[in-house]
């Protein structure tokens, strides 16, 4: 208990801050901060597994998040039958061609010894495959995108409940990570960082511009939610009764019957958004807790000890007979899969998929700030980082406004400097993040909640 005092204290403060937002701003706001904090926490768990457990730098978090989001679309969006009729078969053939290309290349790699000829054969296979793909896919894509482009123009998804996508997203992201890991994990740390950063940009470019798959920058909206809709709730008998019971005291103060009805209606509308967000928060909390338990168990298992050994001294671990390459690949895939879950959760929460909004600042570097500020290697620390940094990211604007008003209180309202500063409030969050990161790295390089190693 005593050992965990700092964890408990830090989390209490964090929870207190969110509740404070509930009282000062609104409960709906507090809950949406909480939901996104939880999603960020899932991302930081993923990044922390890679960086904290194994010391791998993965700057491709944005790519996995977007793939998770894509999974949400492909699972839950209703299928567009006309599009499937128009070009579905051709696209399936294309998938088959890609698959057989990979098989042929693998075969060539196995059968032939390393030589120039082998490289030529592989290059020829790839070029021939690409030309074939192009010839088959180009007309198919055109006809798919031509079908009702204002509302669909893509193949659609499978029309399944969106919750499945959390698992599918994990598989998508894990699969991508497997490919990237095979290619790039041999690189030195900072090269790996750059390579993953660039590959994630490629992923985003594909999702943005392959309209037949993801509708690209036209966005996919109106994905089905796993929780009730506000409008439905407002008509439900039990929900109105619940709200009435909850606000009994204040409602009774209103004597006029009609006015009371009005007030109740207003309360029902307000509470419905809060209720929906509470449902989301519940779902997300469940995910975070499950992941936390699993990762904690893993961290203190023999496997976790091996990972830390590899992180701290690769050569020694290798000498002890641990397969470093294999373990690195495994942890790279696992961490990325968790980030993929977070990506699917995020699209589930928003109900829409906007490929244009995936930017490295928000989805890669911010997550890294969270992990480092919170405490890499310590799951509780990483989650706390997710909470604290996201909270600051959202609340930076009001804080900056307050500070600017405080420091320029001597100036007039129309003063050019003051007006300019107040106009640029949104950008103070970058400043806060940067300064925060630099301060933490300087004075508390292990993060707010540093890694604790249990000696057995």
């Amino acid at each position, binding site marked *: 208990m005593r050992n965990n005092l700092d964890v408990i204290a830090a989390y209490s403060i964090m929870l207190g801050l969110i509740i404070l937002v509930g009282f000062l701003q609104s409960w709906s706001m507090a809950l949406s901060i909480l939901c996104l904090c939880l999603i960020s926490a899932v991302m930081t768990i993923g990044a922390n597994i890679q960086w904290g457990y194994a010391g791998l*730098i993965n700057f491709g978090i944005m790519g996995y998040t977007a793939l998770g989001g894509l999974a949400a679309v492909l699972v839950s969006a209703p299928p567009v039958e006309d599009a499937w009729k128009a070009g579905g078969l051709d696209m399936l053939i294309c998938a088959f061609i890609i698959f057989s290309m990979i098989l042929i290349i693998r075969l060539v790699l196995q059968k032939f010894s390393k030589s120039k000829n082998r490289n030529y054969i592989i290059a020829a296979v790839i070029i021939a495959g690409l030309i074939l793909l192009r010839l088959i896919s*180009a007309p198919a894509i055109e006809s798919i995108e031509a079908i009702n482009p204002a509302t669909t123009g893509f193949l659609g998804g499978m029309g399944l409940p969106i919750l499945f996508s959390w698992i599918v997203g994990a598989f998508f992201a894990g699969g991508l990570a497997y490919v990237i890991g095979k*290619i*790039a994990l041999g*690189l*030195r*740390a*900072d*090269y790996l*960082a*750059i*390579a993953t*950063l*660039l*590959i994630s*940009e*490629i992923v985003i*470019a*594909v999702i*943005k*511009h392959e309209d037949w798959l993801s509708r690209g920058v036209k966005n996919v909206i109106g994905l089905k939610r796993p929780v009730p809709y506000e409008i439905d709730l407002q008509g439900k008998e039990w929900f109105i009764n619940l709200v009435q019971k909850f606000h009994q005291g204040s409602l009774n103060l209103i004597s006029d019957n009609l006015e009371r009805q009005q007030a109740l209606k207003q309360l029902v509308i307000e509470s419905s958004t809060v209720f929906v967000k509470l449902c989301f928060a519940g779902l997300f909390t469940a995910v975070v807790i499950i992941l936390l338990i699993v990762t904690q168990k893993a961290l203190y298992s023999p496997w976790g000890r091996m990972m830390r050994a590899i992180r701290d001294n690769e050569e020694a671990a290798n000498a002890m007979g641990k397969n470093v390459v294999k373990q690195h690949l495994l942890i790279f895939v696992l961490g990325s899969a968790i980030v993929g879950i977070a990506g699917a959760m995020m699209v589930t929460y928003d109900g829409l998929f906007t490929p244009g909004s995936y930017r490295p*600042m928000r989805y890669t*570097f911010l997550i*890294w*700030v969270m992990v*480092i500020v919170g405490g890499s290697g310590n799951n509780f620390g990483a989650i706390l980082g997710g909470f604290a940094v996201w909270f600051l990211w959202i609340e930076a604007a009001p804080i900056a406004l307050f500070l600017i008003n405080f420091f320029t209180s001597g100036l007039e309202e129309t003063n050019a400097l003051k007006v300019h*500063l107040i*106009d*640029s409030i949104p*950008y*103070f*969050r*970058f*400043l806060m*993040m*940067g*300064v925060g*990161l*630099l301060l933490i*790295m*300087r004075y508390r*390089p292990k993060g707010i909640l540093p890694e604790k190693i249990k000696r057995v």
Partner: protein
Amino acid sequence: MDFLNAIILLLNYLFVPALSYGSQLALGAIFVSLIYGILRFAYFTAGDLMSFGTMFTILFTWYFQSLGINLGFLPTALIAIPFGIIVTILYVLLKDKLVFSYYRTKKSPPVMLAMVSIGTMFVTQAIVRIIIGPFDRRFFDGEKFIIRANEFKEMTGLNEGLAIKSTQVITLFVTIIVVSILFWFLNKTKTGKSMRAYSDNEDLALLSGIDPKKVVMTTWLIAAILATIGGALYGLDKSFKPFTYFNNMLPIFAAAIVGGIGNPFGAFLGGYVIAFSEILLTYAYKKFFVYLLPESLEPDGLLQLLSTDYKFAVSFSILVVVLLFRPSGIFKGKVL
């Protein structure tokens, strides 16, 4: 005649734009490569340092314009660049003193320094956006074209026009001058030689009495100069937008690594490799073949290898391929 037309077409849409874009990338790649070689970390602030320098160049340009100073047919920004450089130098030196020197004396691992540079990236980005805002800005003035497409057509009687923007010529000239001075400096002067020695083998260099502080400071000076010039040229040629500059960090890194990171000359060529391959692979060759082939063989499609949306993806794919098959870069930089 058709052959000439085809050549001019390629010159106009491929060669000239790629050359100027490549020069802008090369300037960035050189300083990223230098920082990597001498300070030994991946400098993620690269794009934002360029936007910082460009921002001050723009501010000085506006100031000079308000005073009525201009260079006639040349853009006013050319006189503003030195002032932008001075501010940027002060900024990087301040940053080094407050942030980087601590980790350097502590001999932190390169990963740590890369993380720190992400911190400074956030800060620099915030400063730029707070001062000048996130909007698209054009600060070019003076004569826009050296040769206009129409004039060229009249002059030569060809169907295809060749338009050369003055910014493209300025970019090329400035790049040639700056890069030659830089390579002269690195190869001939004592400080330059000591920088190269320090980059090759830190311990030996220290042993032979090279002052590490001086080497580090010179590196930052060069970085600031190249960042401001490269950024300002890019801004003159296209336009200034902080987000684009941040994104430019990616092809710059690609150029530096493709050329062999830690090797300034490789990075210089890497810039052109990236620029040319981006444009070559995303250009639609239909018109080119229409000129060359007889009518019966005319192509139906656009003959575009990749849509222009994948411009960035091209350079990154090249980078991945290079990393796979020749991790030290085309021109042999530091071995991984």
